[in-house]
């Protein structure tokens, strides 16, 4: 069984093609990085897999079913900049939102839901901040709270949109460790990511996008100088002796 299977997917926005003819499949229990330069369509691909954008053509399957029947199994961590962080919500209120898909339409959080919230807050080291308003936290702390919300959802698939943008190193390594734990539990995690330097060490599989699928697969298959050069328009410097890569103006 594949966690996600995409066939010939094309998406356009207001008459302009974002990407076309994307085909790949991802088996469960992996950390998957969606990488590519700005405007490559990374976030759009993420949203398309979650069934949130209208597609021109193509097929999307999540856990062998159309995404519409799998919604409970999809957890989403948004880009922080898209949210109103002055919203009157405490940290624990945000994490409780992860339990909403498990509560009936007019039901209320049970004791179990509340315990789950506490547990997830402890996992991300934010328990002592549970009564803080979310806007009063640092970027890294906010990101950990949103990860706790996704954990509380107990979903099979997690989708994170640029989770490391503008956050501190402590939070970043904490988040990546938690994601690795999830992977160990057999969950599949998709991350939109733009920092190539760490991409190689973070992910098991990579999807390299530049308005079309340039490469996908294991690190070795994607992290090739020709693929990266194509995606980043040659703005790439290779330091073969160090086995390192550097992206200029990525």
């Amino acid at each position, binding site marked *: 069984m594949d966690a996600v299977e995409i066939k010939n997917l094309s998406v356009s926005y207001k008459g302009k093609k974002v990407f076309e003819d994307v085909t790949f499949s991802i088996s469960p229990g992996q950390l998957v990085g969606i990488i590519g330069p700005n405007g490559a369509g990374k976030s759009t691909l993420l949203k398309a897999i*979650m069934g*949130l954008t209208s597609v021109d053509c193509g097929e999307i399957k999540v856990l062998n079913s159309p995404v519409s029947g799998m*919604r409970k199994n*999809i957890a989403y961590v948004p880009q922080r900049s898209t949210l109103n962080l002055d*919203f009157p919500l405490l940290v624990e*209120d945000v994490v409780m*939102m992860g339990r909403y898909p498990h509560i009936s339409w*007019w039901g209320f959080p049970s004791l179990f839901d509340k315990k789950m919230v506490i547990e997830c807050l402890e996992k991300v080291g934010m328990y002592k901040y549970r009564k803080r308003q979310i806007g009063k936290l640092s970027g890294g702390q906010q990101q950990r709270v949103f990860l706790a919300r996704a954990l509380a959802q107990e979903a099979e698939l997690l989708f994170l949109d640029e989770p490391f943008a503008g956050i501190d190193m402590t939070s970043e390594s904490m988040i990546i460790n938690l994601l690795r734990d999830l992977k160990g539990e057999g969950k599949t995690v998709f991350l939109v990511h733009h920092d190539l330097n760490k991409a190689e060490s973070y992910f098991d599989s990579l999807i390299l996008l530049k308005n079309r699928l340039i490469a996908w697969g294991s690190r070795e298959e994607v992290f090739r100088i020709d693929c990266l050069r194509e995606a980043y328009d040659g703005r790439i410097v290779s330091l073969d002796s160090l086995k390192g890569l550097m992206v200029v103006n990525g």
Partner: protein
Amino acid sequence: MGGPAFFLESLIKYQYLQNAMIAAVMVGVICGVIGCFIILRGMALMGDAISHAVLPGVALAHIFGVSFFIGAVTTGVATALGIGYVSQHSKLKDDTAIGVMFTAAFALGVVLITLRRGTGVDLWHILFGNVLAVSRADLWMIFAIGLLVLVSIFLFYKQLLLSTFDPTMARAVGMPNSLIHYLLMLLLSLVTVASLKTVGIVLVVAMLVTPGAAAYLLTERFSVMLLLSSILGVISSIAGVYFSFVYDVATGASIVLVASLLFSFSFMYSRVKS
């Protein structure tokens, strides 16, 4: 010149004043609660639009002799749908679509009412309220609307909250965002109908936005904001009816001025605190 004692005496003595007071208090609660969602969804202008768009419905209902409930809700929701359609099917932004659609609906309402001049529909009263003419039947209607609004928000609290704060996650887990949006527009039309006699169409938006905005500045928790907003709405209503009675000025405007004053206190408090 009467003071509080005279006001209380009159309140006990006169049925019309009791009705006015009860209506204003209920409207304060309902508007305060629904207003919190309007503010946090960035829909203050939409609130103004829907309340104005109720006017042609009221006029048509009068012409065809049906309950103005039905008329108001029909044109209110139709305008919301129209705004959604225009902004999704053109390059116009939301606020422009709102500006075009609601003024059209409002103008149609004014034309319809002036066509029927002399038949007992007083444009002034619909626009600015006529709190002294609140009947028992009106009170029951406001009560029913209030109950419906509060029960809906109580039942669908999770959905409303999540779709307001993080619409993308709401959609990802399968919540019907646009249904929730139009449900809110429906409730907004009903709230406007409930507020017709106390504050009138033109000033409803103040009752929706001002107490909620004041509450927003004072709290960090949404449930507290809902409570605080309705309390501020009620205080505005009581004080507004009092001043309007004592100084013999328009009730709706008097209620709104008290709300604005409360907002300025809240604003100053939040400035001092930060």
